[in-house]
């Protein structure tokens, strides 16, 4: 949920002695004569870049320990907690964010677009209402003011609302690297715990989402233990009715909190809904089966078994609401 993290490292011992961690670092301390202040060797090298080309070049130059810095809402907390110690930060904030654009039935968001910019975008509200709804659940106002689309995608948190929406709206992540531009389907993008398909020197440059069509309805449902906290689980649902008949033509789900990374609802199971208007019982059955094909984890916030129960309910509710909305729009034609 909020741009937080499940660190892979033991967080219970922030001040633990870590053998070998810093034996070679900080051998030089500079005494600033003018101000009589001690500076340690800076924790990292820093470079501000103004284009994706520059970013990729800098990442390559600074090597393995370099990290791209976008909104900083996920990365910097990890650094403040000393859990992540990049040797270099490549600051992408010199790269401007273009306004969201509609192109060929898709909404395009540049990577450096802030969550807050999406929230106030009329275009986004109209073309991808699911996105606008989901972003209201992200973190708090400060996270939304700084956090970026690209940064959130690259971080790949299992509970990222943006990821859920990307999966539900046929998202395509645009990346740029030494070998040029790449388009990655959202369904291929999130591969593991805080792990995406991005290669080491690639950066996300944008996200494309299917724009709303007539005869389409969407819904976002999430449960967190508290406002602004990380989601226990969440669902983004998008249902399109067939062009001629009022039956389901297509349905997609983006799920968060159900695995180590965001996942799409199982297509095979969902295909059972195509060509029909399902009854509540049928929706529930599909929800149950989709849930059965996920692998929620137990952590400090919730057990796997509760997540399983919860996800089924949320899927059912999201599908029901998305269907209602699709039917409303269809009848309004």
């Amino acid at each position, binding site marked *: 949920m909020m741009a937080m993290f499940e660190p892979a490292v033991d*967080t*219970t011992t922030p001040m633990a002695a870590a053998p070998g961690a810093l034996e070679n670092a900080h051998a030089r301390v500079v005494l600033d004569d003018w101000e009589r202040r001690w500076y340690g060797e800076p924790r990292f090298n820093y470079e501000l870049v103004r284009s994706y080309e520059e970013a990729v070049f800098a990442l390559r130059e600074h090597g393995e320990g370099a990290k791209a810095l976008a909104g900083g809402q996920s990365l910097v907390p990890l650094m403040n907690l*000393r859990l992540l110690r990049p040797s270099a930060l490549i600051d992408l904030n010199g790269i401007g964010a273009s306004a969201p654009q509609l192109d060929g039935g898709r909404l395009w968001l540049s990577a450096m677009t802030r969550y807050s910019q999406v929230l106030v975008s009329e275009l986004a509200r109209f073309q991808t209402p699911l996105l606008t709804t989901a972003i209201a659940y992200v973190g708090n106002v400060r996270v939304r003011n700084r956090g970026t689309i690209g940064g959130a995608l690259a971080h790949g948190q299992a509970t990222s609302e943006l990821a859920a929406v990307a999966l539900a709206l046929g998202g395509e992540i645009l990346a740029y690297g030494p070998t040029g531009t790449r388009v990655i389907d959202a369904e291929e993008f999130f591969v593991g715990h805080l792990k995406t398909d991005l290669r080491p020197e690639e950066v996300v440059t944008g996200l494309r989402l299917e724009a709303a069509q007539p005869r389409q309805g969407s819904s976002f449902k999430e449960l967190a233990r508290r406002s602004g906290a990380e989601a226990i689980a969440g669902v983004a649902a998008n249902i399109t009715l067939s062009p001629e008949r009022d039956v389901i033509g297509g349905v997609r789900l983006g799920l968060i909190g159900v695995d180590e990374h965001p996942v799409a609802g199982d297509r095979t199971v969902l295909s059972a809904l195509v060509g029909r208007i399902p009854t509540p019982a049928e929706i529930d059955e599909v929800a149950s089966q989709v849930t059965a094909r996920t692998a929620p984890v137990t952590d400090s916030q919730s057990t796997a078994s509760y997540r399983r129960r919860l996800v089924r309910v*949320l899927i059912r509710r999201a599908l029901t609401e998305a269907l209602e909305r699709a039917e409303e729009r269809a009848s309004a034609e």
Partner: protein
Amino acid sequence: MSDASLAAARPGEQIVVSEAPPVSVPPPGVAQPHSLGLETCEPQGTETRPNAVAPMRVVGQPVAHHDFIEKVKGSILYAADWKLPGMLYGRVVRATVSSARIVSIHTDKARALRGVAAVLTGEDVPSNQLLEKPSGGPGELRVAMPVLARDRVRFAGEPIALVAAETQQIADDAAELVQVDYEEMPGVFDPEAALLPGAPRVHDDGNVLVSWHIQRGDVQAALAAADVVVEGEYRTQHVEHAALETESGVGWIENDVVTLRVSTQIVEHATEIAEILKLPANKVRLIAAYMGGSFGSKEGMTVETYLALLVWKTRRPVRMIWSRQESILASTKGHPFVMRYRTGATNDGRIVAQDIDLIGDAGAYPNKSARVLFYGAALSCGPYLTPNLSVRSRAVFTNNVPTSAFRGFGARQVTLGYESQMDRLAETLGMDKAEVRRRNFLHKGDVIPTGETLDTAVAVGETLERALARLEEPSAPSGPSKRVGRGFACNMHPYGRTVWFKDSASAWLSIQADGTLLIRCGVTDVGGGQAASLCQIASEILGVPLERISVYIGDTALTPPAGGTFATRQLFMSGNAVMQAALKLRELVAPVAAEALGCPVAGVVFENGRVKAAGRSPSAGASAKGISLGELVSLCEARSVDPTTLYLFHPDADRRGSDAEPGQLISFPDYTYGTHAAEVEVDLETGEVEVLKYASCHDAGRAINPLRVEGQMQGGAMQGLGYALMEEIILDEGKIASSLLANYLVPTSDDMPDVMVDIVESGEGKGPMNARGLGEAVIGNVAPTIANAVADAIGFRPTQLPITPERVLALLEGADGTSASGSVSPVPSASSQ
């Protein structure tokens, strides 16, 4: 003065009242009738303060002044806002295992890091132990806690070494380079497991720190004869204070005195610090900065000893600020309790007996655990007449993080016990839940199980009516899978310290040459207006405008001792001390004024920075205007009258002495009573609980500052809602899994509705002007209020905190009746309140 003109008053604006005769205030500590002897006290009840009397000039006014002005400007200086030339930055190195022998500690790599000024371990501590003062409890073990662990680690996070360096980064780096070799030992992580024979011993002398027994009458016989016996088992969790300001302070050496400026509730710790350094007491000075919240987390020493050691060793200033995660990990927590109740009653709902067992997880070291479990025992029956009682209350060591003071201090936890039992009793008998309580409420004059007689008004009934009235019409569920329920809970909470500690507080007041007033008092300020209230009281009695009063607090070198800010004692103790000091000062200078004004001493009026003769009409000319306080001071000097007073306040200790019957204990000076009521909606499919309405009503005795009283009630309710619904320190083999603020969840503005508050003013408090302290009382009712409301909504009773969606679902799914230790019991569909 009309309410409208009061409401329009702006801060700092002097509210001028028409002349009033001198106030004769009764001796402190003795209950007084409502009128306080002020004939001009007009009843001025409002909707939220039904028994309010007309505010005095300043007391009873919602004035905002002193530190609050600095707080909205952002200019107030907290403990970390202090920088000295050459200052070093400190860091504590903490154990990463829960139970182990320390084989060796290697500090050479840390020391070698450039910029490191000192690395200290236990062998550098002259007297490496902290020993709590005895609580007076039966069988209390005397267990010392090392300042820095040398041979043995007993909890994950236990301090082992200290680092001071030129920058915080270097200090943190050095801390990581300290290497500790452990030989892990079996640990015990559950207090009930720690009670079993053969359990690993946290301390050599055993795992039970203390075992209190309070007895009255013959419980077994009464239970056997009772018409009904209701049983229940309840569990609460470890909670974290999460004050926004983490533990912090700065230390330095000044004139050969180790001087510490720390966020602390108790400056009297200075003597303990001196002992640890093996210095004479006059070589340590402790100054309390205004705290950014505390709630008990800063009652024991936090950074003090570490700062003192580093300062003393390096001879340089040192600053230490605990990181949030460190604070969550290693600072003391609120006790989890396991509570077992057997309540016997007659068929018409009267309690005849309570048989109670309390177990509190003390964690690895004593801290205040012995006292917390006493509070739990003493308040375990709540505000109900209990003819026969047996309560056993044990503080048990484990290898978990140590527990200590947390707002409510044991009396908070037991409310879940007794208020769940009351609802259960009502359900069993098919009685109205409010009626059952009314039949059992204590009254003034009753003897409570600890042996003392209640000698002030017991307004719990009135708080019940008001809180319930606030809920108004029931809300309809918002959907087919939702249920709405209502619940309420009454509580009783002491204020003032346990009587056998012979509490006292002193205050020193002086009028300066220009008529401004200085108050010096050792009180500390946790953010609830502890210091500002003293100004209001002094202003009322001496007529000095608030902006012409300065208050100096919490400095062992300069302020007369007032004891720490805990046990909801400050308004009662320091408030009374300031009040008496002000009265004495007035008595001292009034004769000088009388002579100058040519009126009897009884006719001297102090108001608006001047002294006047009462009853003089303006046409009497200059003499009607009186003289300024500054002029009075000159006159005093001419007559060798020193316009200063120092007053030492001892509360009226007219209670049973320590030679009471076996099992009968003297306890507290007085209590405050309150009721909360709530309406919740439960989502049957997800288990989510949403609070729709929440009301809090407490007896404040007299609200010195109604705005602040309301603030305490709303804040306490919110913190209680966190405790009831979402806050939980999750421990796994003694290691805290939820050490980030991102996953120790405290309520936000977006989580709860506004808390509706009502203040009852019985006028019989033992604080100054009949006030009662209620800073802790206001959190106690919340958890049972929510538990009762949820039970009403879903028909199953939550008995474990926090009431998470997961636990609610488990209750619903355990509907087939299979559950462990009575934690799930179907509730007959009783009427909602």
